[in-house]
């Protein structure tokens, strides 16, 4: 993953999040997204981060971040204690992605999840032509050093959301250095062309407090 992809990812998350809401960023790193959310959306921003250096950097920025592991520590948050739980480019690095996704939607009304799509054509091509684990912009590390242990495709992810009875409130795709574009997650074509996918999910049956996002622009401007 490149910085450009992260930036587009964050931009899309900023667009989706309601101003003044409560957000937990799981795997928040040094707090770049939390900082953006706090300053641009006046969000009550909190984080969970595995690395000590990331947590220390967050604390020095005045952010409320707990050092912990998504696989273990989400259990300690009360039900619906957040409006949004963000899992940006981290799902594939968890030991129990199904459990983590389920937990995100226990502690928050909405989950915003992004991940590299293993069904992207570059990945498929790399595997097909070279017979080697792919190294792409979204998956830049060799197989033996990548933190990713549970990679999935867009189609796999959709199957999991159906399995967990989750509703897709918004979906976006990123490719290369381009901006986010909305996509139809059920489309087989998107499973070829989306390098990175981003979803906003809620539980079926939980009423949405806001309408679905329009195709572009800041949802909450004006």
């Amino acid at each position, binding site marked *: 993953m490149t910085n450009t992809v992260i930036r587009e990812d964050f931009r899309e998350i900023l667009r989706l999040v309601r101003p003044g809401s409560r957000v937990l960023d799981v795997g928040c790193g040094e707090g770049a997204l939390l900082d953006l959310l706090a300053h641009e959306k006046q969000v009550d921003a909190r984080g969970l981060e595995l690395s000590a250096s990331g947590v220390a950097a967050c*604390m020095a920025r005045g952010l409320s971040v707990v050092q912990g592991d998504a696989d273990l520590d989400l259990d300690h948050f009360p039900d619906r204690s957040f409006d949004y739980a963000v899992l940006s480019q981290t799902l594939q690095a968890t030991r129990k992605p199904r459990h983590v996704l389920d937990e995100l939607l226990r502690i928050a009304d909405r989950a915003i999840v992004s991940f590299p799509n293993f069904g992207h054509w570059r990945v498929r091509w790399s595997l097909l032509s070279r017979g080697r684990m792919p190294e792409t912009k979204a998956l830049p590390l060799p197989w033996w050093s990548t933190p990713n242990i549970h990679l999935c495709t867009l189609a796999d992810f959709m199957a999991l959301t159906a399995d967990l009875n989750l509703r897709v409130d918004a979906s976006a795709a990123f490719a290369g250095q381009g901006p986010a574009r909305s996509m139809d997650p059920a489309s087989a074509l998107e499973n070829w062309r989306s390098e990175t996918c981003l979803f906003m999910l809620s539980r079926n049956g939980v009423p949405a407090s806001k309408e679905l996002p329009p195709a572009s622009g800041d949802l909450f401007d004006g």
Partner: protein
Amino acid sequence: MAALDLVTPVLSGGGTWRFPANEPLRLDSGGVIEGLEVAYQTYGQLNADKSNAVLICHALTMDQYVASPHPTTGKPGWWPRLVGPGKPLDPARHFIICSNVVGGCMGSTGPASTNPATGRPYGLSFPVITIGDMVRAQAMLVTALGVDTLFAVVGGSMGGMQVQQWAVDYPERMSSAVILASASRHSAQNIAFHEVGRQAIMADPDWRGGAYADHGVRPEKGLAVARMAAHITYLSEPALQRKFGRELQRDGLSWGFDADFQVESYLRHQGSSFVDRFDANSYLYITRAMDYFDIAASHGGVLANAFTRARHVRFCVLSFSSDWLYPTAENRHVVRALTAAGARAAFAEIESDKGHDAFLLDEPVMDAALEGFLASAERDRGLV
């Protein structure tokens, strides 16, 4: 308790506050202490809207001299990294309060104080005290100083226990909290080490059943041994190895029991300098208070239940990777309970080989984290 009519500048700088007879300290053990005295130091001034007060809670062997020279040892305050001009807690911006705990020996009522009933030192007739009692006395002092709500309550080790007790008993009187290298209760190992210290004191013939003051003696040897054992628990094996290794004091071995190794003479020095500034019975009472401390026990065994009234408080918890006295797991236990209670907690384990004492030492990562936390809490409180 009615706020006492006091003018802050009179108390600024500190002294000893004696509570009026109609305000006894009611103890968890059921007893009361009449005419309680609490010795304290303050730094800085309370601002006009009384929103900048900070309470610093000291550890077992510390006292109220957090940022000023100790009257006995002449050493500067014990927490210069946190408190001082340009530091995260700055007398130019904050009204900083630090009091000697009840049961202590630096001016607060303790076992060495005169028992008004007998006119002689309390000794073992001093009632058993708890962390809750210490905090209740602090709350009375804070009120007497004209402070309703504290901007922050800060402490490490036993001080961190007091901060937790504050969050349980007086959450409405605080807006942020810092807990360093602490625990919500003592492990069997913690209690075991304290018992070694207490037994060393009580085995000293000069202890005289706790009435040594009546005999004009002091159990210095026992207290020194207690300090030596405890001091080892404050360090880490790598830190001891780095400082001393197996280095000798002199050329060759003495073939006896003199301090041959540098680590031996270091510990003997720690022990002998401690007896100059600490009272043996205070050591017994305060270690007992720490052993009895167990917040969850009084809240149905569920620690999170203890913190439910502290949801609005911003917490910062820090542990140190080489602290085996209050290890990261114990600190994390507190953080998880705070999280489960819905409080806003920040937590980090700081990489350090300095052991438990790291919270008092040169740890730039800790400094940056504390500075960031306090600055952000100040913005929340509207102080900047």
